Structures are given as C-alpha cells and as structure tokens.
C-alpha cells in the first residue's frame, strides 16, 4: 500500500475509529505481568500511538477488518501486535520465555513462572501482519516445501530471532505431526526438551499412560524450576487454574453470544478472541481485561438489539473444525456472504471446559493432557464435536479446514465429516488453505455455494 493510501486509511478508516474509541475510554491494560511482579499501565495514548505506527510496520493488517466499534478490539489488536516488543522487554528483565505448541495447556507454563510463547500462533500472526508469505516461504526453504504454512512461519520467527525463546519445551502428542519435527529442526537454534504425551491412552494402557504423563508433567516443572531458580508450589499452579478458568469462561461466553439473534459479534472478532487462547499473548491478565471488555461490549449490544459489524440479519451459522482458517480475511468474506462462525473445534479450543481446581494440580494437568479433544482419535474427536453441535442452539453447517501440508487435519477430514454428517445430518464443507490471500476467489465461490445449499435446504424444510 502506498504512502498516500496508508495516510488516507489512517485518518478515515478503522484505525481512526480504533484510536478514538480507545481515547474515549482510557485503557486499563497492564503490560506483561511477570516483570518481577510489577504491573505497568499502558495508556490509551500509548496504544493509539502504537497502532498508528504499527500500520507502517505491518501493512498486512490493512487487509482485515475487525470491528472498531466493539470496545476491547483495539486493545486486542494492540496485545497481538505488540507481542514481540513486550516479550523482548520482559526478557531483558530476566523473565524466561518458554516455547510451547498450540494444544499444550498454558496453565502449566504460566503456573511454573515462565511466559509461554506459541511460535505457531506468533509466527502466523506475523505472516498476517506483514501481509506477505515471506516467513512461510523462508521456513519452507529450510524445512520442506510441503510444510504447513504456520509451522514454516514458526520456524522462521525463531530461527531469525524475531521472537525470543529461552527454552523450547513443548509437549508432543497425538496431534500435529509437523510441530514435533519443527521443534527438532530448531535444535541448533534454541535449547529444548519435550514432554511425551502418550498416543494410546485408552483401555488397558490407561493407568500406565496416566502415570507416564504425570511423570512428564513433573519433569517439565523441575526443568522450569531449574530455569527460573524458583520452586513451583502447587498453590501457584492452582491460582493459575483459577485465573485461566476466568479466561476460559469468558471465551465460552463470547462464543455463546453468536447464538443470539442478531449476533453481536462477527466471525473475525470472535476468532481473534479464540486464537489468543493459544498462549494468551504472553500475558493472561492483559488478555483477561481485554476479553472481558469485548464480552461486556457485546452484551451491551444485545441489550440495544445491535448486531456485529457486517453480520447478516439471519446468518448461516457455521462451526469451524479441523484447523480454523489462519487467513483472517476469510472471516470477513464469510460475514459478507451471510455466514457466521459460531465457534471452533480445533487446536484453539483449549477453553472448552474449566480446569478442576480442587485436586492435586499436577495430576489435574496430566489428566487434562490426556483428555484434550484435539488429541483424541478421529472417531472420538468427531463424537465430541457432534456432542457440541447438539448442545448448541443453532448450527447450520460445519466447515472442516485443513492447511496445505498438514497431514494431521487432512488425514482425518473425511472420517470426522462423515461422522458429523451421519450423526447430525448437517452439511459439511472441507476447505484447504495455504498462504493468506491465496485462493480467495476459489474460496468465495465454494463458500457461496455452500451457504446457498444450506439456504436452499432450509427453505425446503
């Protein structure tokens, strides 16, 4: 985008609305929280200024249209885009940043006194913000031309030191194949270890798997103690559960709002909220404040009978599974076409239920690992999704998305959608996407046809 277009955008578009919105209601967002216990307020001006400058650094964000009138969205954009600088700052002060993969529970990391960074999420955000596939292409040149775009970007942001990591300690389990080998491919760059999440943990191996998982969680905690020089007390983990349960509850509430007519939140805003559950952008407390604002603002809209920006009056409600689209523009496109995402059953759904705060926290975490829906067999994952569909009031269809190169999602697309179709009678669409902005034409046609088919079915019914 050239200079003048940027300028014009700046003063007439979303950015100005964002800026005005935030100046009207001063921010209460804290800076990254584990700065030796200190909390820093980030002023509204600071956010305004940051976002203004971000437009020059991250031209990709011109391509996505979050709803600036939904209070909290500017803060959310701020904490997404400022992740790099906030992490670097906190690291200079001695806090350790430890890498994880999407399905790993964040509570374990934050509860152990380190900042969790999910390079998968951070990398893809960076790709979107830059508005080019540069990082993915660069990562693919190192890993494989068939690597999933997000994993390739994850590789690049770590190997290029864009995001700092003190240690890489993901849990590797029966999900994403690429991630374990991406972790391995970064061994020359960052020290690490991995927790072993057993693949078969059913039936007779249940007890042995649980004990194995438990020992892996304990080993992780010991390593974190060594890294930070501080003991991890069970109470600390429990407090983290309590704190993150609040986050999970808010996300469930926000997701639930899509069931209301007219829906107060659009697909992109909903998914931006959901995405951050991957690592809470380095700061669960800031995430909590931001998401609370968004929820409260959306609830106020319901009271006023207002709907989310660009949402149709009677949208076709879709559940997205597989892996949610990383190309954020697709959510805008879906809204425009009269659809609405009502939630995701994918690796980002770490908020599906609270973590039990009553038992031994280490055992609770081990159990949590072994029951994550994303890590179940295809059949059980499908059944879990079916259960969710039945619980939701309105779902009109299901999109199963695969990223190019993702063997994990792709290989279960057919089983999962066959079961969903059979059990719920809902139509399913399998999509596959690669780099952002690629294939949008084809996607538009496919989504249009899918929505049309659903409308037709509804009319007949």
């Amino acid at each position: 985008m050239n200079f003048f277009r940027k300028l014009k955008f700046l003063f007439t578009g979303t950015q100005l609305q964002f800026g005005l919105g935030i100046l009207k209601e001063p921010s209460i967002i804290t800076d990254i929280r584990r700065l030796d216990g200190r909390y820093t307020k980030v002023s509204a001006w600071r956010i305004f200024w940051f976002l203004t400058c971000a437009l020059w650094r991250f031209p990709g964000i011109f391509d996505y249209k979050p709803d600036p009138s939904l209070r909290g969205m500017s803060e959310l954009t701020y904490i997404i885009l400022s992740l790099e600088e906030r992490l670097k700052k906190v690291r200079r002060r001695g806090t350790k940043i430890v890498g994880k993969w999407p399905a790993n529970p964040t509570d374990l990391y934050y509860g152990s006194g380190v900042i969790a960074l999910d390079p998968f999420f951070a990398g893809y955000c960076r790709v979107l913000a830059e508005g080019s596939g540069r990082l993915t292409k660069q990562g693919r040149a190192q890993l494989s031309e068939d690597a999933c775009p997000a994993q390739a970007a994850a590789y690049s942001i770590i190997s290029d030191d864009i995001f700092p990591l003190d240690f890489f300690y993901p849990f590797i389990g029966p999900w994403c194949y690429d991630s374990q080998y991406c972790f391995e491919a970064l061994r020359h760059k960052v020290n690490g270890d991995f927790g072993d999440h057993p693949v078969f943990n059913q039936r007779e191996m249940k007890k042995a798997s649980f004990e194995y998982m438990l020992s892996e969680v304990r080993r992780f905690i010991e390593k974190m103690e060594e890294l930070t020089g501080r003991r991890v007390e069970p109470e600390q983990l429990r407090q983290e559960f309590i704190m993150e349960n609040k986050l999970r509850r808010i996300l469930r509430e926000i997701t639930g709002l899509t069931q209301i007519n007219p829906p107060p939140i659009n697909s992109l805003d909903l998914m931006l909220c959901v995405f951050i559950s991957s690592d809470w952008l380095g700061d669960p407390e800031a995430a909590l404040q931001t998401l609370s604002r968004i929820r409260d603002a959306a609830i106020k809209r319901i009271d006023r009978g207002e709907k989310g920006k660009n949402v149709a009056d009677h949208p076709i409600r879709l559940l997205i599974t597989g892996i949610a689209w990383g190309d954020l523009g697709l959510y805008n496109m879906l809204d425009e076409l009269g659809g609405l995402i009502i939630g995701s059953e994918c690796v980002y759904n770490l908020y599906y239920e609270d973590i039990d705060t009553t038992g031994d926290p280490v055992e609770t975490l081990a159990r949590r690992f072994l029951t994550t829906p994303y890590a179940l067999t295809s059949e059980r994952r499908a059944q879990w999704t079916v259960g969710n569909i039945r619980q939701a009031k309105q779902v009109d269809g299901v999109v199963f998305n695969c990223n190019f190169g993702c063997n994990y999602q792709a290989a279960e697309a057919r089983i999962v959608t066959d079961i969903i179709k059979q059990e719920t009678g809902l139509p399913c669409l399998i999509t596959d996407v690669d780099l952002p902005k690629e294939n949008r034409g084809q996607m538009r046609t496919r989504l249009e046809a899918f929505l049309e088919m659903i409308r037709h079915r509804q009319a007949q019914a």
Partner: protein
Amino acid sequence: MPRPSALTELNDLLAKRPEELKQAKAEGRKVVGYFCSYIPEEIIWALGMIPLRLCRAGNNQAVSVGATYLTSNACPFACSCVGLKKDGRDGYFKLIDYVVDAPACLQMRRVLEVWEKYFEVRVLSLALPRQFYSVRGQAYFAQAVEQLSRELAHDQGINLDSARLTQAVELFNDIRRQQRWLYDGLKQASFALDWRQVLGVIRAGLLLDREQYLQLLHELVAQLKSQAPDNTPARKARLLIAGAMLAPGDDKLVNILAEVGAEVVMDELCTGSRSIYGEIKQPDINSIAQRYLSNIPCGSLPYPKLDDDPRHKHLRRLLTEYRIEGVIYYTLRFCDAYNFKAGHMRHLITSMGISFLHISSDYTNADVGQMRTRVEAFLESIQHRT
C-alpha cells in the same frame, strides 16, 4: 561371479508366499499385519501367529485411491496403504486377520483409523512412547509390549509359553545376526553380493516364513563364505542411501542409480539396515521391549538434542565404516519426519567432507527425468572431488 542359489530359492519362495499364507489361514493360523519396525515379531510368532510386515509401495493408482480418504497432504506410502487395502487385490493385504499399530509415524495411525472405520479391519495398538531414550519411556514401552502380548494371547486363546518365546527370541536374533553378516560384507569391495541384492534379502524377510527364511539365510551365508571374493576392481564412488524407507515397489531411485551405474554400498533405511541391529539378551518381555525401543531410532521419533542425536552417531559410524563418499537422502513428499531433518543431515554429512543429495519424491513418474539428471550431476561432482 555365479549368483548364489539361495537367492534364487528366496525368490521362488516369495512367489509362492501368498498361496502358502492362504493355506495357512485355511488351517486356522492367524496372519498379523504391521507397518512399523517397532512391532516385536517374536511375540506374534511365539503365539503361533504369522507376522507380516505390510510394506508395499510404488503404486500410484493406490496412492490416488488412498488420497480420497487421507487427502493428498498425506505421504504416498500412507495413501498407498489405504489404496491397496481398498482395492483388495494385493496378495498380502487381503490376507491379514488384524493389524498391530505402533504409531512411530502418526500418519500411519491415521491409515489404521481409516482401515478400522471403512474396511472394518481390527486394529490392536502398541503404545509406543516418543521418548525412546529415557528410562521412563523404556518402562512404559515394556508395559505396552506386555499388554499387547496379553491381548494377542487372549485372542489366540492360549498363554504365552516361555519355551516358545525362547525359541522365538533365538530365531529372530539369529535372523538379524545373519543379516548383519550380509551388511558387514558390503564393507568390502570384493563382497560377492551388491547392496541391491542384500536389500532384496532383507525385504524378503518381511514376508517369508521366518524359519524357512533363516534356513535360507544360513545357506546363503555358507555359499558366500565358500565363494572366492569378487576381485573385479570397482572404482566408483561409494554411496549410502538414507531416509525413511524404500519399500518394495518404490524402485524409481534404485533403478535410476542402477542405470547410471552408481554404486550403492549401504543404506540407513527402515526397510533395510535399520532393522538388523540389536540382540535380545533374555527371552522375556522386558528384554524384547528394550531391543525394539533402543534400536536405531526411526526419524519419526523426535530427539531433543542435536549434539548427541543417536541417529547422527549411528550414521557417522556407517559413513566411516563403509568409506562412504556420497549420501543420497531419499524422502517421500509430505513426510515431515524425514524432510524436516534434511537440513541437519546435510550439515552433518557435508561437515565430514561427504557429498550430500536430498531427493524428495513420490510414486509418480513425473520426476524421473529430473531425478536422473540430479543423480548424474551428483555423481559427477563426487568424481571431481575425488
């Protein structure tokens, strides 16, 4: 140099094997299929069942059929396993009673989910830990092997007999010993068999009756020992093929190498030398589990430290012992486990002054021309260096 008659016999037996299996099944014996080299055949055999490694590849039509279940993002081997099962004509695939799954590669786990759901194949699981190197992993795996043997025994309606287990351990230890002898022979330029013939012998062992196979191995070794060494001066670059596997049928690269007259003297492949190492020390479950988990690890199991990666150590040893001048790292497309390792492999190998070529391919013939050109250029570059 005359071809040892044991090799011809081996081929004859292979041709008759599907028929023989059919008969064994008719007599009530069960055929247990498996994919990964982590399945302890000893236990299957000791329980009176027939272990069969389902290692068939190279059929692109089967890949296309498989892709309708797994999508084309899956590796061609995984797709072809689905395609061949769906097709139902493969002499081996159609004979199995059930499959044991040890998910080293998670793509294969999906294959078995598809088999279970769409082709109603019974699948038993062997819980393989990723941490093949840790004491905890080892203990977990021992429990998993124990569990599998209980399930299989229950299925057979018998108990695992310790005398029979001892026999099994001796049988398979001896098979691996003879196979090691053959691979050791490839260190000498004058060895009477070439690598491709040795690979053929190993591949046959995945399918044949194991006692018959051992007998033939002994014959072959005896014949080779009595033969005068092949003193034809061979002065070509000594190559090693590394990677995941070259399953029977996936012969594109091997054929090109033969056509251009390259001399492969060793492999580091799952379907080749990787399965020949390690002795089972005691005829018990723990020792069996230990041999399988501490064997040269499959690249599907990650290892967290670069500087003491056991795969690298093993490869370094092979490169030195076999005086290797060039390595072809052969991987299948969408095989992240092996493709993502190419960078570190390249570094390891070239830092030893050895040439390195990475070929990532599939089962189509689309890249034959390009592959040949790359192989030729690679050989030329080695000649220049030397």
